[in-house]
C-alpha cells in the first residue's frame, strides 16, 4: 500500500484523509442544520453546539494536515485523457474551492462563536467558552464580542456551509458520473489507491 501520492494512484494517507473528512463534513453539515433549525431543547442544543465546535476544531486540524500533505507530495494521479478541457478546469477550480472551504468553514465558525457576547469574560447569565472536547479552550480573537458581529459572521458561516454543500453535491455527482458513465478510474482509485 503506497504512502505517497504519485501518477500511479493516491497514497493511503490521502485516501484516509479524504474519506474521513468526507464523513466528518457530512456529519457537520447535518449537525449544524439540526442544532439550529430543529432542536428545541436548549440544553440539548447547547450540548450539540459544543460538539459542533469540537468537531469543527478537529476538521480544521485535519484540513491543515491534508493541505500540507497534499503540497508535500511529488505528484498525483492524472485526470483521464478523455476529459474535455472545461471539465479539467472545473475539476481544478472545484478542488481549490473545496480546500478553501475546508479551511474557511471551521475558521468562520470559530470566529462566530468567539464574537458572541456569551463568550466574553463578563457574559450574562454565564460565559460559554469555546472548548474542544472539554480539553482546552480555543483562543478568543474577540474578547469583547457584539451581537451584530456575531450575526454577520454567523451569516457568513451559513453561506459558506451552503456553498460547501452545493459544491459537495457537484463533487459527488461528478465522481458518480466518472464511475458509472465514463467508467474510468477516478472514483475507484480514491478508494483503492
Amino acid at each position, binding site marked *: 500500500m503506497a504512502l505517497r501520492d504519485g501518477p500511479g494512484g493516491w497514497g493511503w494517507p490521502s485516501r484516509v484523509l479524504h474519506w474521513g473528512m468526507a464523513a466528518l463534513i457530512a456529519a457537520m453539515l447535518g449537525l449544524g442544520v439540526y442544532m439550529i433549525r430543529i432542536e*428545541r*431543547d*436548549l*440544553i440539548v*442544543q*447547547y*450540548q450539540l453546539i459544543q460538539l459542533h465546535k469540537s468537531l469543527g476544531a478537529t476538521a480544521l486540524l485535519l484540513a491543515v494536515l491534508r493541505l500540507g500533505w497534499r503540497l508535500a507530495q511529488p505528484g498525483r494521479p492524472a485526470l483521464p485523457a478523455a476529459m474535455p478541457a472545461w471539465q479539467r478546469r472545473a475539476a481544478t477550480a472545484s478542488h481549490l474551492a473545496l480546500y478553501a472551504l475546508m479551511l474557511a468553514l471551521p475558521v468562520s465558525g470559530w470566529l462566530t462563536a468567539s464574537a458572541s457576547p456569551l463568550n466574553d469574560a463578563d457574559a450574562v*447569565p*454565564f460565559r*460559554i467558552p469555546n472548548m474542544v472536547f472539554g480539553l482546552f479552550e480555543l483562543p478568543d480573537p474577540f474578547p469583547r464580542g457584539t451581537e451584530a458581529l456575531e450575526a454577520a459572521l454567523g451569516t457568513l458561516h451559513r453561506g459558506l456551509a451552503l456553498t460547501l454543500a452545493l459544491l459537495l453535491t457537484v463533487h459527488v455527482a461528478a465522481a458518480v458520473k466518472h464511475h458509472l458513465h465514463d467508467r474510468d478510474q477516478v472514483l475507484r482509485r480514491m478508494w483503492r489507491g
Partner: protein
Amino acid sequence: MRVLPLLILLFFLPPAAAPGATWEIVPGATRVEVDVHWLGRVVTLRFDRLWGSIAFDRQRPDRARARITVDARRVSTGLAVVDAFVRGPDYLNVETYPTIGFRLDRLVRTSQSTADVLGQLTLFGITRPISLQAQVFRYGPTPGAPDRFDAGFDLTGAVDRRAFGHTTGLPQIDATLPIRIRLLMRSV
C-alpha cells in the same frame, strides 16, 4: 348475581386500601418538570426530590388532602453551568427559597381516570391558587407487595410566574411555565 363478584372483590381488597389510608411518595418514580420557554426554545427544569404527607381515601377521593414540598436546591437541567444560574439569585434563588410548596385543597373527579386538582402553590414565599389536571397512570396493588397499593398520577398544568413576583427575562423568557408532575404514591 352481578353483585357477587363485586363482594368477592371487596373482600379481597388489600387492607392498606381501607378508607383514610395514609400514603407515601415513592422517590425515584416521582418527579416534577417545569418547561421554561425562551424565544421558541425550551429548558426543562427537573425536580427529583420531594416529600410530604398524603391522606387519600380511595372510596372518597374528593376528601383527599396533601402537602407536598419540593426541594428547589436539587433542581437540574442536565448541564451544570445552567443549573448554577437556575439555582442562583437571578432565577430560583434557592438560598433564600430552598423549597416550593403545594397544598391540595380539592380533588374533583372528572372521569374514570381523570381529575381536577385544586390547591395552593407557594413559590418565593408567595402563595397562590393553582389548578392541575390529573390522569391516572397506575392504580392497583404494588407489584411484589400485594398488601400495599399504588396510585400514580400524571399531573399537568401551568403557572404564571408573574403572580409570584418573578419577572426575570420577561418577555423573552415566557411568563407561563408549563408543569408536568409524575406522582407515584404507595399506601403505608
